């Protein structure tokens, strides 16, 4: 019974979101930030924390680092492919493996990276779905 209810909720949510998806691309820059926050909370927050600080020695911060503020294709690639390399940021090393998130849509990745590049004190430029698409294709 419970399962059935959960399933219904899931289906309802999916339907709602599928609907939202069609409107997704038409939204403005501010919309991208709002949607990006939603993706951030659901996918990124658990490891990178609500404030983008990460966790010492385990999960890298998203603040004050060229991984986030540098060239966009490299950043997009990390989201698509995950990350399992030695990383040193501001003298600290981080050991946890990041899983790939290629199941996110181009627009979701664009939104969440826009959010990350403009939040926590970062002042980077937006990322577009077209930029994500390009990296995904050249993967």
């Amino acid at each position: 019974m419970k399962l059935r209810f959960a399933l219904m909720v899931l289906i309802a949510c999916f339907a709602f979101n599928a609907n939202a998806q069609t409107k997704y691309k038409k939204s403005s820059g501010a919309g991208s930030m709002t949607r990006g926050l939603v993706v951030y909370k659901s996918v990124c927050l658990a490891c990178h924390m609500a404030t983008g600080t990460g966790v010492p020695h385990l999960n890298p911060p998203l603040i004050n680092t060229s991984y986030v503020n540098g060239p966009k294709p490299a950043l997009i690639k990390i989201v698509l492919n995950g990350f399992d390399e030695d990383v040193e940021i501001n003298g600290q090393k981080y050991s946890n493996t990041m899983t790939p998130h290629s199941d996110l849509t181009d627009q979701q990745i664009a939104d969440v990276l826009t959010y990350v590049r403009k939040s926590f004190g970062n002042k980077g430029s937006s990322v577009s779905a077209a930029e994500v698409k390009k990296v995904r294709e050249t993967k």
Partner: protein
Amino acid sequence: MKTKKLFVFMLPVFAAAGLILFNACKSPDDKGSKADTTQTSATAPSTADAGLKVPAGFSAVILADNLGEPRHLVVTPQNDIYVHTQGTKDGKGIWVLHDDGDKATVKTGFGNYGGTGIAIKNGYLYASSNSDIYRYKLNDKGEVADPNNPETIVTGLVNKRMHNSKSIALDNDGNIYVNIGAYSNICSEYDKDKKGCPVLNDAAGIWQFKADKPNQKQTDGVRYATGLRNVVGLDWNQQDNQLFVMQHGRDALHDLFPAMYTTKQSADLPSECMYALKNGDNAGWPYVYYDWMQKKLMAGPEYGGDGKKEADAKYLRPAMGYPGHFAPDGLLFYTGNQFPEKYKNGAFIAFHGSWNRAPEPQEGYCVVFQPFKDGKPDGQYEIFADGFAGPDKSPDGAIHRPCGLAQGPDGSLYVTDDKKGTLYKITYKK
């Protein structure tokens, strides 16, 4: 794949609600002005000089500060303290302090490697980097005579970045035990076809080596116990003559299986576990996890579990379970005579504190006492020292995070903090 996508859309609902909780998480016990640090009343817990909350009759002082990132430590009969730091400073990763009672001063440093493990046994100081174990002969004053020329006991242990700290403990029969943590959360990237996790072959267990034989390789050791994801705190129980370890449980039950686990369940589960180990034991990672609320060993969702199915009974049950993600980094069996009788032969556990309970509040950041009877955990654990984090119990916001534990010659308890580099001493006065 579809469930994964669904969950991506579902999750914000929980996450948004939880974020409010997350941000509202404030520890109630961070008040510690020096004005009200008068010696304890008989009933209420006291806030000692160090800003920690400890039981009545106990007091905590800060012996030293800004030591870098001190991990484990050991105290000699002469009141020298050997502290191993995670990294090196001025090319040194082991620091020697002398405890003068309420202050400790740094005497010297040596060892050109950072690390976690450090122990003293039979006239030798043992210390580990993330891939090797060394030992140094101690003189009759408990000092390292030749700090620049240690014997290499074990070399080339698996070190693949994740869970790579090598904690150590020694028994009374000439063996040294070392944790080799799994270089993975739950092995999914190494066992896609679910044919058996290959990480277990060279990691995710405790290995046993000869304590006095130089240049052993990992393959020269015995895989003493397997199926342990990552152990940081471990200690030899003298009463039971047995190795006890604290396992850090897996992450991301909800993130990976949103249909089976709520964010709340994912914060509480799986248990952080204490295991009493014997040669050949298998604690079951990545196939099983322990549910401390139901007191059941559960089948992992990657291997046929559904959140309700119990595990195959062949796996070792933990001696005790603790709430999820508290991160037990220090374990010490108390054998001293200074503390009240109930502490004798019980276990202190330093919980470093969680990062992955969001959107639930983060927890841990404390030292607990686990009562023991006849060499086995007996009854509920109790918070022994709290207030390390200050008002913000989160990895970034915490002021201090407890990590290593040691017992002094007079029975005092020493605690390291690897966030601000503080060294605490907790004592009891009748």
